[in-house]
């Protein structure tokens, strides 16, 4: 996972509420063997709407997405987070997120920033013409117009994002503890510690 400390650039002013994971990535894109390439399917139905911000060349390659309440509700598909990453989005700003989406986003190194609706409204306005800066270390979102909005984040998630640590990487650091458990199992519960029987 790539460490994240700052995200700076244009933001896609989407703003819609209750965006579910079927909107982020429709189900027919799930029959894939890769996390990559899903950006093409991201917001597939929204892209077909007239004057969609997702087809506006002004916002092509923008690293930030601004959305409305309850972003990422619906299924648990991790493809939603993968699709955003594939589009180049590493930060989503919204008044609130679904728990599962927020967790999947975190597990994939995407920063979710929850801000009050009025702050989000102001950022939507700025995003039309200017870039936005997010600083994870100081937990604030700023603009060139002296806007400054602070946000909360779970300290553990902040630490992981700043250092590019994923849960797999963190648990791998506990290799010795895991090894000790395996040794105990070999003595106490040897029949679980191996799966051989006659098949091995």
């Amino acid at each position, binding site marked *: 996972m790539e460490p994240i400390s700052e995200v700076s650039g244009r933001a896609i002013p989407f703003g819609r509420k209750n965006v579910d994971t079927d909107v982020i990535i429709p189900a027919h894109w799930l*029959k*894939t*063997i*890769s*996390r990559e390439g899903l950006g093409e399917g991201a917001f597939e139905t929204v892209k077909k709407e007239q004057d969609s911000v997702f087809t506006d060349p002004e916002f092509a390659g923008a690293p930030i997405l601004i959305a409305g309440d309850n972003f990422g509700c619906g299924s*648990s598909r*991790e493809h939603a987070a*993968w699709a955003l990453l594939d589009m180049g989005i590493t930060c989503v700003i919204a008044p609130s997120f679904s728990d599962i989406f927020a967790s*999947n986003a975190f*597990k*994939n190194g995407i920063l979710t920033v929850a801000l009050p609706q009025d702050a989000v409204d102001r950022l939507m306005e700025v995003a039309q013409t200017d870039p936005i800066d997010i600083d994870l270390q100081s937990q604030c979102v700023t603009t060139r117009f002296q806007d400054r909005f602070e946000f909360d984040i779970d300290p553990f998630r902040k630490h992981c994002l700043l250092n590019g640590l994923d*849960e*797999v*990487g963190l*648990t*791998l650091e*506990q290799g010795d*503890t*895991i090894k000790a*458990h*395996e040794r105990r*199992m070999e003595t106490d*519960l*040897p*029949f*679980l510690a*191996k*799966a*051989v*029987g*006659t*098949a*091995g």
Partner: protein
Amino acid sequence: MTKSARTLYEKIWDAHIVDQRDDGTCLIYIDRHLVHEVTSPQAFEALRLSGRTVRRPDLTLAVPDHNLPTTARTDANGAELPIADKQSAQQLAALRTNAPSFGIRYIDATDREQGIVHVVGPEQGFSLPGATIVCGDSHTACHGGIGALAFGIGTTELEHVLATQTLLLKQSKTMEVRVDGELAPGVTPKDLILHIIGVIGTAGGTGHVIEYRGKVFEDMSIEGRLTVCNMSIEGGARAGLVAPDEKTFAYLKGRPYAPRGADWDKAVAWWKSLATDPGATFDKSVVIDAADVQPTVTWGTSPEDVAPIGSAIPAPESYADPSKQQAVKVSLDYMGLEPGTRLKDIAVEHIFIGSCTNSRIEDIRAAAAVLKGRKKADSVKWAIVVPGSGLVKEQAEAEGLDKIITEAGLEWREPGCSACLAMNPDKVPAGERCASTSNRNFTGRQGPGSRTHLVSPAMAAAAAVTGKLTDVRELTG
């Protein structure tokens, strides 16, 4: 600190704690990991991109099931037939490459041991009582039937298990579903679990691990327990279990991956110690009288939309909750059904006997017992029986069940997930109705626009004969 009187779930949990964080999150060791082709490709890709390896390939077993067509896999010369759907073929090919390249044991589509991952695990003795078992599939709860703590995981969790053989988890609450008495003749474990889901609802087990207790489960076969535990997730519980007993030990003894010799004796002694202690308490308890359970079918698009076969479609207004009333209206509209219609008057055009819920030898026997000497109704367009594994298929053929099935006019297929989930060629057409022994009656589950009625294998066989939802007891006397 462990409690003095503990439940089966708590004992298994305690035995697998590798580390505990201050916030109560535990690093839990995973004893067995089953892998199939749909949810694993991205996890393998992530390992490859980060240069990570699989910590315990020896505790991991891969087998394809979801995408496989259930028609012949080889031609007359034994050469493998190609898979027409390119994306299915690609997912299957990815598993065939990924598993061996990470040192994981792989059962191929053309091997005799191939089958649905949740049938293969217990059948091979790979799944064991007291083990923690995961798979990227929510029906992993199934393995609780032999007394394992088994649950489904997402793709990042799958990668976590591959790389570390552990998962970061918070302990679930405990829930007891107690059923005493005896199931009436013609009432099967599938009817019972449908009835239970009807009682507790699809969110009844959320946040809990269910232990199925009482005389009915003690009397039940291992196949029956696997069927019950399989659908724990439809009741909202990530896992469900039945305490291992002499039946469990007899079922597992001598299976390919099961322990042997001194290990076996040690295993049995430990397994016997796992039963919930007298005095242990559950966070939630539901008691059901076996005498209340009838042959049960679903009429809607949620697994909690169940009714005894002798009843009629309920009216939306019969529900107190306005949101449920609305859901029932939408569901009946999708199903093309009217309130008040007798369930026995509902005609079905398709029959599916199979899936990880009901494709074991006992299920095939139950279907064959009904089909013997009878014929499929002409109005039934398509009726398939799909054994859960190559070994189930061999056993059924050795007993002559395939002959009974084909003579009745049903098709006898190759093992796989088949018409349970519309990821392979076995689908139910839009607007048509299927009596199905699978586990989900969701909108579009068996194909876009498909209408599913969940039933037991005996009830599905009875529907094949009459062309309508039928009380199997009236057919077989």
